[in-house]
Structure formats: C-alpha cells, structure tokens
C-alpha cells in the first residue's frame, strides 16, 4: 500500500512552469544559522567566562576583602602580595615539577592502553569500556574512595592490608609528608581517572592511520613492532600527541578536586588553584589577591602552552610537518 499522501489536484498546475520564488541566498541562510546555533553558547561564554575574567582582572587592582564590588584602587599591591606568598609561588614550582612528571606518564600510559586495545581481536569493546569508565567518575568521589577505602591509614585499608601480607606495618599515606607517599595516592588517582579519556583520543587517531603505510613499510623491510611503531605509528600520532600533551599540561596546573579532598590542611602538594581558592574563597576571602593570582596563573599557562605549541608544532598544517 502506498503511503504517499494524495494531493488535492482540483487546482491544476499551470502549464507554464512557475518562475522560481525568490529565496534568500544560501550565504545569508548560513549566516543566520550560524548565529542561531552558536549565539546561545557565545552568550554563555561571554556571561560565564569572559565577564568573570574581566571582573577578575578588575578586582586584582583593588582592595577586595569580603566584597566583589570594591572601591579602593591599590594598583599592583595584590600582585606583589600574592608573589610574596611562599605558598602560592611554591605551588607554582611544585606543579611545574608535577606537570613534568604526570604529563609524559599519562601520555605514555594512555598511548600504551590505546595500542593494546587497538590490537585486540576479541572483547575490544569491553576493554575499551573498562579503561574509559573511570573518566565518568567525579574527581571528588574518586578522591574519597582513594582516601577512605584504599589509602586510609588503618589496618583494614586496602593498601595497608596488601602491604601487611608482606609484613610491612600500616602506613599513613596522606597525613605524613615524610616519606611523601601522598604523591603515590595522587598520581595513581590521576592516572586512573585520566588515562581512559586520552586512550580514546589515541584510539581514534590509530584507526585513522592508513593500513597502506604499514604495508609499504613491510615491503620496504620494516620489522613489525618497535621499528614500525617508531617510524610510522608515532609520527602519524603527532597531531593527537600534541593536543593530548597540551590538554594534560593545562589539567596539571588546573588540578583542584582531588588535591583539595585528599590533602586537606596540608602545606605540601598544594596546586595553585587550591592556594587561590584558599585566598579568595576560603579563610581569607581576599578576592583582590586571589584574582591577581588567577591572572598570574593564566599568563603562566598561556606562556607554557605557546612554548609547547612552538616546540611541537601545534596548529601547523600537515604539509609543514
């Protein structure tokens, strides 16, 4: 049975073909569509990102304790004060070292996982999901699981139970900075949470490498394994690697949730954002000094990102590689 709707044909169509109705040009429609679909996001971006950023820059030049509508202009005093705060400057140094460690580690782990999963011939989807699922867990929830169940200091904590099998005494993983076991807790948590996401990026990139490249390499005598990986896979992943490293760098400096929940009232292992949170939104309620710190951190991230982009060629065209 036909499902086509029968039209009313009482008014017969004119014999002479009707002249095409004037239409808005495709270009005009494209412009309208562009604004229609992007404007909600642009408005959100302006209201929730650019206005606060601008306000933050404004606040950084004012005495703004317990207020975000200050009136006393103090020039660069907030910048001097935050740079004179050893906790903040120390956090910048600590997290540059942290970034230098966690970025390559996460990069290597996620790439390794992607290579493993990519080569799987069975249960591929299962293992892809297994490694990706932690990405969906909130940093706060994961930090509490790590702190209260796995790395707590009592005898029935998972980590202490395991080391207890080997005759090792209970360890206070987070309360005692010497030895700094807290880094083990933080790094394992971060790797667990992040590696799956970057693995997916690498998997997508791996699937885009043409099989012909491997065939050509094989014909030319390249040995499968390290040689193929070194000279074909890795160069083909360059764009993805650059993006992954960029995202990891920014994430390292923007670390907050797990550090806040794991270390509490510590003076070590404190990321810049936690220091700024304490300054602006915590005990001090100094929005001026906190804003000055935020500006400094933004500039630092910008410089490092541009520097990294320059080294790795982020944004260059394929032909220029």
């Amino acid at each position: 049975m036909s499902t086509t709707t029968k039209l009313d044909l009482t008014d017969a169509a004119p014999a002479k073909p009707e002249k095409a109705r004037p239409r808005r040009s495709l270009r005009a429609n494209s412009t309208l569509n562009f604004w229609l679909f992007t404007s909600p996001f642009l408005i959100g971006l302006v209201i929730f990102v650019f206005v606060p950023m601008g306000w933050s820059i404004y606040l950084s030049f004012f005495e703004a304790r317990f207020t975000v509508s200050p009136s006393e202009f103090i020039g660069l005093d907030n910048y001097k004060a935050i740079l004179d705060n050893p906790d903040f400057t120390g956090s910048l140094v600590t997290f540059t070292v942290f970034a230098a460690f966690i970025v390559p580690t996460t990069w290597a782990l996620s790439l390794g996982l992607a290579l493993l999963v990519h080569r799987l011939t069975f249960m591929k989807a299962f293992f892809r999901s297994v490694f990706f699922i932690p990405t969906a867990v909130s940093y706060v929830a994961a930090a509490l699981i790590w702190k209260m169940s796995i790395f707590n200091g009592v005898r029935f904590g998972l980590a202490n139970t395991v080391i207890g099998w080997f005759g090792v005494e209970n360890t206070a993983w987070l309360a005692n900075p010497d030895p700094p076991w807290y880094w083990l807790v933080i790094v394992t948590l971060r790797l667990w949470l992040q590696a799956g996401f970057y693995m997916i990026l690498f998997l997508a990139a791996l699937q885009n490498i043409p099989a012909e490249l491997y065939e050509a390499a094989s014909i030319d005598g390249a040995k499968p394994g390290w040689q193929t990986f070194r000279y074909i896979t890795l160069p083909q992943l360059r764009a993805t690697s650059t993006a992954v490293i960029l995202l990891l760098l920014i994430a390292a400096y923007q670390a907050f949730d797990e550090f806040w929940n794991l270390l509490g009232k510590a003076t070590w292992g404190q990321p810049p954002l936690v220091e700024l949170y304490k300054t602006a939104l915590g005990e001090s309620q100094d929005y001026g000094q906190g804003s000055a710190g935020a500006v400094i951190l933004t500039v630092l991230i910008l410089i490092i990102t541009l520097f990294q982009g320059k080294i790795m060629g982020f944004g260059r065209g394929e032909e220029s590689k």
Partner: protein
Amino acid sequence: MSAMSNVNWDRRTVLRAAMGMAAAGGLAACGGNTGRSSSGEGLTQYFHAYGEAGTEQAIKRYAKAYKEANVTTQWITGSNFENKLFPALLTKNAPDVFEFHPQLQMVTSGQVADLSDIINPVKDDFNPADIASHTVDGKIYGVRMIDDPQFFYYRPSLFEKAKVEVPQTLEELIEVIDKLTTSKVKGAFLGNDITPVQSPLIWSAGADTLNDKNEIAYHTDAVADGLSQLRKLFTSGNLLLDAPADWWDPSAFTQGLTAIQWCGMWAMPVIQKALGDDVGIFPFPKVGDSGKFSVTNGGWSMFVNAKSKNLDAAKEYVKWLWIDQKEYQEDWALSYGFHIPPRTSIAQSATKLKSGLPAEGVKLFSEYGHFDNIAWTQSMIASVNDVIANSVRKGGSPEASLDACDKKVNAELKKLFG
C-alpha cells in the same frame, strides 16, 4: 484523533510555544525551593551537616513550626562549611540566617546584623563568656545555640591494663600513648591533621591566641616546645593517622582503633552506648612549667545576614527560635548529641548533664574551657593550621613556622585594627 493534530505547527507557533514554556518554566522556578511563600516572608537558613542522627530533621521541624515565614533549610554536607557560606554571602542568594562562629571580619565587613535588641532582654540568662565572644563595641552580633567542649576520651580498662594514670603533662601524655600502643590499637587519635589540638596546645602552654590588646600571644617558648613534643609524638608511630572518619566522629575510638581520642562532648551518647562505663575524659594536659589544663569550647551561633532583604523577618525568626523557644533549644542541645545549652536556665534544668560522664564534661568545661575570641579569625586559624603542618607533620623548625605565622596574623590584624 485529538484536536491537537489539527494545529498547524508553523515556525511562529513553535516559537510561541517554546517561549510560553520557557516563561512557565521560569515561573515554576520562582515557586521552587526558594523558601518564599505566598503567605508571609520566605527565609533561607544555612546549617552545616551535624553528625548526630536526627539533627537535620529537628532543624527542619523547628523551621516548619514557625508560622510567620516559610523557612527553607540548606543542610550543607562536607567539612568546609565556611567555603560555601562565605562566597554565598556575597551573592543575591545569600542565606537570611546562618550558623557560624563569631568572627570580627564579618562584623567589620557588614555581613552580620546587630542582634542586641533581641538578645539584651535575656542577656543575663546567657553564659557571660558566650555573650562576650559575640560582642563588638557593645553590640551583640549572634545568638549562641550550643557550647561544645572538646577533650580527650579514654578507655579506663586499657589504662589499667597498661598500668598508666591519666596524664597531667604533655610529656606524660606522650609516655602514656606509647604504653597504650599495641600492634592492633594505636595510643591516640588527635585528628588526621593534628589541627584540632592546636588551640589547646597554646592554652595549655599558658599562652593565648591573642592578648587583650589584640596582639599575638601564641608565640612563646612554651608553645614552641609543645610543638616539638607534638612532633616527637607524631613520629613515634603511636598516633592513629589517616583514619577514614576524622576526629569529630568517635568511630576510631568506639571501634577500638585507638585508646585515646580527642573529640567533642556531642559524641558522648554514641561513645557511652558503644563502650558503656569504660569511658573517661580528661583535658589537654599542661605544657611546660607554667602550663594549665585546657578544654576547647567549640559550638555554633546563629547570625542574621545584615544585607538580607528580609532583615526584620530574619531577626524575628532568630528571636523566636533561639530566644523564645526554650523547648526547642533544649531539644537541640540534648536530644541528639550532648551539647551544653548556653542559656543558664536551660543548662540548670538539663537533667541529662547532671550526673556521670556528662556532668564531668560540664565540670571540665566550667573549669578549663576557653571560649571563642571574635578577633581570632578564620584566616588566623588557618595560619596556625600551617604551623602544625610545617612543624609537627613536616618536621620544620617550630620557631620558623611560628615566625611565618606571625607575619600572616599580623597582616590580618593590621587589616582588622589598622
């Protein structure tokens, strides 16, 4: 077929419908969880999450019983109540009424309202120390709801087994903790970051946080020596650290993970239920030659947001609940955890506090309790947290840590007092 099928869904109709739904949504949001009602004022109050079962329901029950306004309660979980309260106070969604501790900067920045007019008529019925800790230039800025003494809980049976006595000095405490420690039970739990005992350490060393002139009074040789002793205790391996539940929860003590725990009187009913008569309490012992016993008096107070649009209604509600409704005040102090009612008339009639361990808690509170100093702000407390972190947990020089603390506290004092 329904009539709806005949509607011509052109772009205008769709747009009109969408706008209508958005408007309806907006209106629905207005009638949501805002605490506003068509009859009377709508008020919002902030409470941190108390650990004792039934407290949230109690606060909401009191609020519901108030007929003059629709009072919405935000029960804020997590251990950083101030990190949620302070930013909220800067916004239009700030609570009208909130609980906190007396803090001078909240007065100087105009965040809390003067409540003298509602407290003065019953001022003499309050603990004078509680009134003093909420007073600035003769004006009273908060109503104390509960006083919460904090001290050491211990198991007499374990003391007997280890043949040790209740310690009188910090040195003795360290020795006792050493003797109580076994392969299964740690000697003591002072909180995961040791900060709960920072103020008692200062007081027990014969010092104070600030003196009468609002100058630094904590930086003494005895305090520095006490910090060194705490460091010795920290590295002895005899302290319980990284417990899943922190010091305000008595789980570590009731589960037998520790023989001594620093905790508050609020936990007394739970501890007694778990351990029966095998529980004792003692104050923070003396530190140094001029040392004194000390007990922290925590507690919470009600404040009214001075910038509230419903200022008068908020003050009326606070007066109704925390001044007029003695029945609710007694219920709040004694039906869940144990707290000492700041109203003398209620405290005197509180039979639950008249005998046994609760009575002993009241005695320690009366003899050795230290009340809030309104000029000792959250920022200064955080600076001393850093002293504990750097000198006790990290092993830095106590003198250097105290010097660094002085710098931060003096900057804060300068901002407060010029």
